[in-house]
């Protein structure tokens, strides 16, 4: 009561001088007094005077000179207490929702705790459970989406169940997410990427790096002495030119290629092309190489793997152990200028020099786990900008060792990237502890287009490296290479690459094989069905166009027709006998393809110097036995046009050649009607048919149409008689067109 401020409360103030000053106020002041509160009159500074308790208004107008804190606080103890209390307790019993800042609040959080930020979700759920009324239940979780309901709990197990009809590659799941998949040769294989990527893949195979998983190729291991292995393989290869005998490949330095035939059936009943690698000789084993045990890996196309395996296993009495080890290995093919750079970056290799690498060279290396130097995101390797010194690579042969290979089938720590986490996993796997960061691989150099007989210039297109790994490491390496910018391709990209580089495609370019016949019958049936589905007005009238065989290539009728034309009896038996499974040796039947390099070289020379009239086969005694054989040719259009599969390769007449490119001939319309299955395909049209195109497209490397096909040697020689230019030309006519186009022809 001693303090003049003691009883000052906000409520007491409006009382002061209400009557005394109220009259003289302006309207504005009235408003202010009503809504904001009265102004503190400076000339009435003493609140003590205004205390309603005193009721008196003494004339003290001076402000106090100071105030005593303790007394001030004591007077307001209750209010301060409540203020402190509320400040400490913050917001009392609030919902979790209300503790969120305003911009993070969401509607209906009290029903669905998933709308809370994840860190508060647990608290929110607990609160919700606390607040439940007796008898009330939390809303049941919704039924999962169909996708998740159909998804197996154990995906690995379901994957293995789904492989009972077709096998999957080790990279299958990766591919299935990104590629159109097709069933071929007992595998589910990536055909082409889902994105629009023909050009991108072509750029990758030229200038960057295209990667393909070709693990579907089978691998057959032959173990025995070198002499026994070579003697065994002689039954399946041409006798005069030993397919497997070349020195550098038998030392294991380079990968060799060969075409296998059924046992002692050469030149008929071809099985298909294979590549092979010998296990490299070490220094100490070099002297007694013939006696000691050697290993040979035969890489075969999946269409013939079983056949080759059976044929080889029937010869088991020769002391050679034959077994299939394809499932233990995977093989990736890297193509393009940066293939080596990609490998170097992903596997921490020293530079693989282009010039010092022998074509087809095999390097047996041990590399570090690609996960150890994985970039955080996908990067592109850059081409070399500074010259690097060649480094001698240290080679070993762990991958060849079956026991060690089996131990390496599972990479440690599937999902770990950092080394620390992996050390624990490494401890678990006691057998390979210490070694499990290192993987033995095989690098095989792939030669692209080679300059053969000076016909095609050498080109970097198609050069690259194959990587062969233990199967379990497939995804680790695949992702490692993906992260270095390698672009994945499928079967379509493979066909494109082979067309651009002029390599032969198996089984499309091997009409004398069983695999070709199977594939071809399927394709012919499919094409025929598709043709029949169109209404007659919307499909080509093949009878009128004069296309004798629009859906398949009748090779046997073609060879027969040329034999009749030349007046000599055909060596080929009528159709049907070719399909017999086990033809007896010594009795020639079926188609033959001339693969001997000397014959091909001669034909190639004839095609290059066609105007010199060297084509008379009477002058060339070597060519006489192969007149009824087929030979693989490459076609490059002279100006316009793009050949497609089943296109006819025809011999130009003298007027056609004289007329030049500008006047390419047109097939006159044939009478309508059915074409019989036994008609003469050679003389069906106005120009004689020499052969058929097996694959053709607009080549992006050449910038014009190009294709690969097969011709009868006799027909090709007769077409060479009329040439006037140095480079031989033939006519090509697509099955759905009457227009002939000129094409340069070279023998592959």
């Amino acid at each position: 009561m001693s303090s003049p401020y003691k009883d000052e409360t906000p409520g007491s103030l409006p009382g002061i001088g209400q009557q005394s000053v109220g009259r003289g106020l302006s309207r504005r002041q009235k408003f202010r007094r009503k809504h904001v509160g009265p102004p503190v009159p400076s000339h009435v500074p003493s609140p003590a005077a205004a205390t309603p308790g005193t009721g008196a208004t003494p004339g003290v107008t001076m402000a106090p000179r100071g105030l005593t804190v303790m007394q001030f606080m004591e007077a307001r103890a209750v209010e301060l207490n409540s203020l402190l209390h509320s400040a400490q307790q913050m917001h009392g019993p609030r919902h979790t929702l209300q503790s969120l800042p305003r911009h993070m609040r969401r509607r209906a959080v009290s029903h669905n705790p998933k709308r809370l930020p994840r860190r508060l979700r647990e608290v929110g759920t607990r609160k919700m459970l606390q607040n439940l009324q007796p008898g009330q239940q939390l809303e049941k979780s919704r039924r999962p989406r169909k996708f998740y309901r159909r998804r197996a709990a154990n995906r690995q197990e379901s994957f293995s169940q789904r492989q009972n009809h077709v096998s999957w590659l080790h990279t299958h799941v990766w591919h299935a997410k990104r590629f159109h998949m097709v069933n071929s040769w007992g595998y589910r294989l990536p055909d082409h990427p889902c994105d629009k990527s023909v050009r991108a893949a072509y750029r990758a195979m030229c200038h960057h790096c295209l990667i393909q998983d070709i693990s579907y190729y089978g691998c057959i291991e032959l173990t025995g002495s070198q002499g026994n292995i070579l003697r065994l393989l002689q039954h399946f290869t041409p006798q005069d030119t030993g397919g497997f005998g070349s020195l550098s490949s038998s030392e294991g330095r380079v990968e060799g290629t060969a075409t296998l035939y059924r046992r002692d059936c050469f030149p008929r009943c071809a099985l298909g092309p294979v590549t092979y690698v010998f296990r490299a000789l070490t220094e100490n084993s070099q002297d007694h190489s013939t006696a000691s045990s050697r290993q040979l890996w035969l890489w075969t196309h999946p269409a013939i793997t079983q056949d080759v395996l059976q044929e080889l296993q029937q010869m088991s009495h020769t002391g050679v152990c034959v077994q299939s080890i394809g499932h233990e290995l995977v093989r990736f093919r890297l193509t393009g200028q940066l293939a080596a750079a990609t490998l170097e970056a992903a596997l921490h290799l020293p530079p693989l020099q282009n010039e010092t690498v022998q074509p087809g060279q095999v390097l047996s290396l041990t590399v570090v786990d690609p996960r150890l130097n994985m970039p955080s995101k996908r990067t592109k390797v850059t081409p070399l900008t500074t010259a690097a010194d060649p480094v001698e690579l240290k080679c070993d042969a762990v991958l060849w060792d079956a026991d060690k290979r089996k131990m390496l089938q599972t990479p440690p720590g599937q999902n770990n990237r950092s080394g620390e986490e992996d050390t624990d996993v490494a401890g678990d796997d006691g057998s390979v502890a210490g070694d499990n960061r290192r993987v033995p691989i095989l690098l095989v150099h792939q030669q692209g287009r080679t300059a053969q007989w000076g016909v095609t210039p050498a080109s970097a297109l198609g050069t690259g490296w194959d990587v062969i790994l233990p199967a379990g490491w497939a995804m680790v390496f695949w992702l490692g290479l993906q992260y270095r910018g390698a672009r994945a391709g499928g079967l379509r990209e493979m066909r494109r690459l082979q067309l651009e580089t002029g390599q032969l495609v198996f089984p499309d370019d091997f009409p004398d094989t069983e695999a070709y016949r199977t594939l071809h019958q399927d394709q012919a049936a499919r094409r025929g069905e598709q043709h029949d589905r169109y209404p007659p007005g919307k499909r080509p009238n093949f009878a009128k166009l004069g296309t004798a065989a629009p859906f398949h290539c009748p090779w046997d009728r073609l060879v027969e027709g040329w034999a009749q034309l030349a007046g000599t009896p055909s060596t080929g038996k009528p159709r049907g006998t070719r399909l017999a499974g086990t033809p007896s040796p010594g009795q020639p039947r079926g188609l033959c393809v001339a693969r001997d390099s000397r014959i091909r070289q001669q034909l190639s020379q004839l095609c290059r110097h066609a105007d010199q009239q060297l084509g008379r086969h009477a002058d060339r005694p070597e060519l006489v036995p192969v007149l009824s054989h087929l030979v693989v040719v490459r076609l490059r259009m002279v100006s316009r046009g793009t050949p497609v599969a089943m296109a006819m390769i025809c011999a130009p007449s003298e007027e056609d050649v004289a007329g030049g490119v500008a006047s390419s001939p047109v097939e006159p319309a044939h009478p309508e009607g059915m074409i019989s299955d036994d008609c003469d395909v050679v003389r069906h049209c106005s120009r004689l048919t020499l052969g058929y195109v097996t694959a053709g497209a607009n080549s992006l490397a050449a910038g014009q149409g190009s294709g690969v096909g097969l011709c009868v040697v006799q027909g090709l020689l007769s077409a060479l008689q009329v040439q006037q230019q140095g480079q031989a030309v033939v006519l090509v006519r697509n099955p759905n067109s009457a227009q002939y186009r000129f094409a340069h022809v070279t023998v592959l």
Partner: protein
Amino acid sequence: MPEATSKRVGDSLSNKKDKKSGEKLADTVPPMDEEEYQLRKRLPRKLPKRKNDIYVNMQSNFKGQLERAQRMLDAGSNEVFIHGLGHAINRAINIALQLKTRGLGTIEVSTNTSTVELIDDLYPEKSDVSEEVQSRNNSAVHIRVFRLSS
């Protein structure tokens, strides 16, 4: 700057810098028996490539290669290195001189030559002969086309 560039050219010379081109036929091929061997040429050594290196070849269009060099010069780099090997030497010189003519006195050339070792593989046609490797030399030209700084 000119010193640095000339040094780079010198470097490349010592490393036999040159490459890829359309050498159509071997210049000096030792005699071999065509019956026994098949000759396959390896590609020339792959060399580091800077932004302003142009390796002239005989497969690409002449005009395309000329325009590429011109664009490189116009795009701000004051010098371009044009390399030609074997058959493509003529074309490399042609491109350099055309650039000079187009430059109307603002562009100059300086030339170096070198020799490149090329490797051929001889594949045996018969089984009784062993595979062989032969090396031969081919000439190369390296032309530095640069803009005069004045």
